[in-house]
């Protein structure tokens, strides 16, 4: 066992005033959940503004780091060795050995930074800095001290034991999951929406998701793809309740009654309405979409405004709103959804896409045309809600939580 513990650094939750304790607890809980998936026994130690993951048995270093990197709220992960409190002469040797192990090529500038919390240790932190620095320098003449811009910060913390660490592996940042409530993600099989879900989860929100399928225009494989995507996002967010809504009837009705160049935007307005209805039923406090300004005709500023106006009360979070496609792709590769997003079977809804959809819709005109749907839309809306099939998706797969009540096959 090369390291005895991981020091967990968290930045933002340190500033949350009275809520700090709640945030810390949420963070420890998420760390615990991720460590459950790793080989080995771990304990979490929370003392004086630090979280330590203590390794109580053999473990797989890469596996532990990979899983800790999925815990939102962690700013940095520091692999640490723990030594018993020892006289400075012995500590000097141990520190030099540790430096040598951590940096085999040794030709680096460094600075020693000591925190002495155990005030009964005979020499103070400034003196420890000097002693340890000297020990490293004399052990490795190719290294050098630089107190202003060191390449390496060599940390020593003297507590009831002595902790040494030099590496800080960046964590995902953000806030611990669940500390921000719950949101409903409109999830498609594309690149954007899984990234949007991940980003919002990173700010501490639990995620539920709604997917709209339109058989026979979309296939069972399209649903499987969405489940696979949700399953990848669930690595970070924990289990996702995925609502699978049959949208065919509404889509065809819009197609029949409304101008075709407004089809997509009216369709999206109904998707938002349905998602909001489910969100309220399932106690979500916000909707989340993968929209980004100008990406497609239905995501121009005006179109976003018209879509947004369909939502009654919930806020709509659009974390990707000002992201370029390239940047979204970069994140989707990082979180592992990209390869699944680009698989085919995206959807066969393209017959519903007009050649030249409106890019500057006017809300009043759209609302006027939605009036054409007056006759049947309410019952169809209710029927679509009744098709709700709920799947619980976690990182290992999915299971049906609630079967659909109305299979909506009549008329087909």
């Amino acid at each position, binding site marked *: 066992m090369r390291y005895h513990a991981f020091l967990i650094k968290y930045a933002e939750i340190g500033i949350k005033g009275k809520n700090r304790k709640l945030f810390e607890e949420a963070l420890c809980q998420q760390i615990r959940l991720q460590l459950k998936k790793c080989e080995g026994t771990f304990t979490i130690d929370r003392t004086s503004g630090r979280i330590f993951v203590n390794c109580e048995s053999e473990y797989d270093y890469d596996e532990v780091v990979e899983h800790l990197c999925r815990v939102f709220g962690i700013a940095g992960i520091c692999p640490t060795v723990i030594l018993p409190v020892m006289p400075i002469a012995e500590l000097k040797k141990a520190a030099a050995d540790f430096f040598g192990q951590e940096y085999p090529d040794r030709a680096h500038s460094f600075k020693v930074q000591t925190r002495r919390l155990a005030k009964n240790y005979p020499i103070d932190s400034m003196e420890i800095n000097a002693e340890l620095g000297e020990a490293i320098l004399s052990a490795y003449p190719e290294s050098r001290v630089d107190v202003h811009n060191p390449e390496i910060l060599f940390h020593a913390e003297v507590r009831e034991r002595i902790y040494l660490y030099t590496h800080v592996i960046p964590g995902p940042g953000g806030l611990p999951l669940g500390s921000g409530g719950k949101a409903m993600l409109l999830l498609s099989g594309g690149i954007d929406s899984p990234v949007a879900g991940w980003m919002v989860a990173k700010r501490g929100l639990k995620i539920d998701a709604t997917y709209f399928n339109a058989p026979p225009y979309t296939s069972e494989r399209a649903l499987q793809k969405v489940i696979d995507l949700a399953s990848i996002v669930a690595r970070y967010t924990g289990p996702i309740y995925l609502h699978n809504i049959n949208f065919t009837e509404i889509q065809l009705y819009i197609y029949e009654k409304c101008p075709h160049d407004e089809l997509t935007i009216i369709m999206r307005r109904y998707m938002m309405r349905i998602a909001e209805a489910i969100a309220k039923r399932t106690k979500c406090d916000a909707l989340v979409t993968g929209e980004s300004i100008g990406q497609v005709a239905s995501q121009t500023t005006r179109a976003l405004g018209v879509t947004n106006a369909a939502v009654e009360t919930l806020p709509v979070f659009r974390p990707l709103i000002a992201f370029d496609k390239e940047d979204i792709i970069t994140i989707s590769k990082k979180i592992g959804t990209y390869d699944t997003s680009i698989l*085919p079977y995206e959807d066969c809804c393209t017959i519903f896409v007009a050649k030249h959809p409106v890019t500057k819709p006017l809300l009043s005109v759209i609302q006027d045309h939605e009036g054409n749907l007056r006759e049947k839309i309410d019952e169809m809306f209710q029927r679509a809600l009744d098709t709700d099939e709920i799947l619980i998706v976690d990182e290992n797969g999915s299971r049906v939580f609630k079967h659909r009540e109305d299979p909506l096959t009549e008329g087909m």
Partner: protein
Amino acid sequence: MEREIYLDNSATTRCFPEVVSLMDRILLEEYGNPSSLHHKGVEAEREIRKAKEILADILKCSPRNLIFTSCGTESDNISLIGGALANQREGKHLITTKIEHPAILETCKYLASQGFEITYLPVDENGLVNPEDVKNAVREDTILVSVMHTNNEIGALEPIEEIGRVIKEKNPKTLFHVDAVQGFGKNVIHPKQMKIDLLSASGHKIHAPKGVGLLYIGDGVKVRNILFGGGQQGGMRSGTENVASIAGMALAAKMLYDHLDEDRDRLYEMKQRFLDRVTRIEGVHANGKTGRDSAPHVISLSIEGVRAEVLLHALEEKNIYVSAGSACSSNRPHISETLLAIGTPKEYLDSTLRFSTSVMNTDEDMDDAAAALEQLLPFLRKYTRQ
């Protein structure tokens, strides 16, 4: 739920229950390794020998001409790669057609990358290769010609006998490989008489399980093995034989060939019955030949104004299972080589469905499928892209 109507038998078939019981017995009782010296081994070996005898009887060849593989694709790979490697001193030229299965076309691509020259022959509007074209393409250095027996997408029956004759007239050394994955079990195929040197077939297209294939290698035909190992099957195909599936494939073949004439008549009648009805629907066209000069079990329809994949899923909701000629998808369109080669108009490439039958289908299946089309098409055509 409505009754299941499975019309995707060119993709795969349901096992005969008799095949399943036979395999069940072999897997539970005669589970020995045919290479073992003891009784269990002998018992298993006997099953393989029996299977070879049955299949040799059907193909009018000797059991020693038969090799068992894992699938049609493997049989095709051994034939082309093994045939090319064993005969490359005679030349490095191979001939095939534009409408072969990917198991042939992709293998040819690989051989081309290894320094072989491949000629791809065109087909006419019915998907048929002209034997005259074969004759003109065969050269002194042509080592192998590969032509499929039955096209999997439109059911074209290639003039195999004539092609065999013209090849051997022009260059007796040239090997003739026939991919009969779609044809075996539905047609009389006698390789020796048809001048076929190598023939591929597959178990799961004839009501046996997936994971077993057949390869006929004519007497004196030089093929190099491409798998190396324990030297089973005379070294041509190392690997412990899949005894149960091999026996299952032989039984399925026997069951089909015992009633071949009646079954063929019935399949052709079902095909005609279905076509008579659906081609009366406006904008529905059959691809390729449709009479007794076509495959008894494959029906390819191009349907105006409907995307094949949407229709496929709409039929699926009625528990009717078919295939799309070309799979549409927004980011990776797959265009069928066969449909392109027969000159299918662009607007139909995305609107072609394949209905493929088997002896398990009934007139009622065909009537219900036709009725489903009659009902669905007007509905789906209402919602087409403007």
